[in-house]
């Protein structure tokens, strides 16, 4: 079993094996956050490594006021966001400034091809959404953070988190409803 306190204490004494345990414990969490923002595999790998190097460097500043997973997720989120902001290939030009004004566009050929599998279709739709929606859906549903924890990770007020999450799910539901009807035929 992963004993967080003991592992942290050991890492702070310079034990790299203990740090490897921590990486194994949280690599999925970090990957989920990053993969929703960054598409390319090599970039994802580089950012994951960068996140854990930052974790190692700053672990002495971690105060046990929050959960370690929340603290690591915040580092992952900020690192990925900074990376996206600095890389032109990831900059979103087709999205409105206010995510509340986002709507799915009409179906494209790629969407028709992917419609054979529900999970793949939902992931495809999420990939088309504004980054705020993508991150919140991941943090809430996949990483199972609470609203309060998501507020601490992203810095968005809890009300905004709830609103974006509600709207993202509603948009997905509307598309999924059409998809399910289409598959019934």
């Amino acid at each position: 079993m992963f004993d967080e306190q003991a592992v942290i204490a050991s890492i702070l004494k310079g034990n790299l094996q203990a740090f490897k345990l921590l990486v194994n414990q949280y690599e999925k969490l970090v990957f989920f956050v990053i993969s929703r923002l960054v598409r390319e595999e090599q970039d994802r790998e580089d950012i994951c490594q960068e996140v854990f190097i930052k974790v190692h460097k700053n672990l002495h500043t971690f105060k046990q006021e929050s959960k370690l997973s929340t603290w690591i997720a915040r580092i992952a989120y900020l690192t990925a966001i900074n990376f996206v902001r600095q890389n032109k290939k990831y900059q979103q030009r087709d999205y409105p400034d206010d995510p509340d004004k986002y709507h799915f566009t009409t179906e494209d050929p790629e969407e028709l091809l992917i419609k054979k599998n529900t999970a793949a279709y939902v992931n495809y739709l999420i990939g088309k959404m504004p980054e705020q929606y993508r991150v919140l859906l991941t943090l809430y549903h996949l990483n199972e953070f609470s609203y309060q924890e998501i507020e601490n990770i992203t810095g968005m007020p809890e009300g905004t988190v709830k609103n974006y999450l509600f709207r993202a799910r509603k948009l997905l539901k509307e598309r999924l409803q059409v998809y399910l009807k289409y598959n019934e035929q």
Partner: protein
Amino acid sequence: MNKLTDEELQKMLEEGLNQPMDDHEDLMVYSQLFNELKKEPNEGLRMGLSSRVAARLELKQDLQLSLKNYLIGFVAVVAFMAIAGLVALVFTKSQDGSSTLQLFDRYKWYGLLSAVLLMAFHYIDQRIKLSKFKV
């Protein structure tokens, strides 16, 4: 039964209250959506991320250690030059102290510059190694 709003349906599913209501289409769709959102993506990282990160950290620690050693080396060179100058001054004062000091004075910046350049070269070399490091 009154039709539940999207907000109510989402709240209900968030709280895990997924009562079977076969006639409620929206609930069924939301329920399926919530299940899909919980599923982990098929793609993932290559195996052995922890080893790759540990290797990078070791390289970084080596860099810090070598920088520390270079700094000690630099201080040693400067100290050696200062001591050599003093020794030269003491032992040659009676003979030709002024010319030895002049010689020392003339070349001191070359000595210091060489030490600084050597350190900078090693530092840049290590930084490049670290930035290009891929496992």
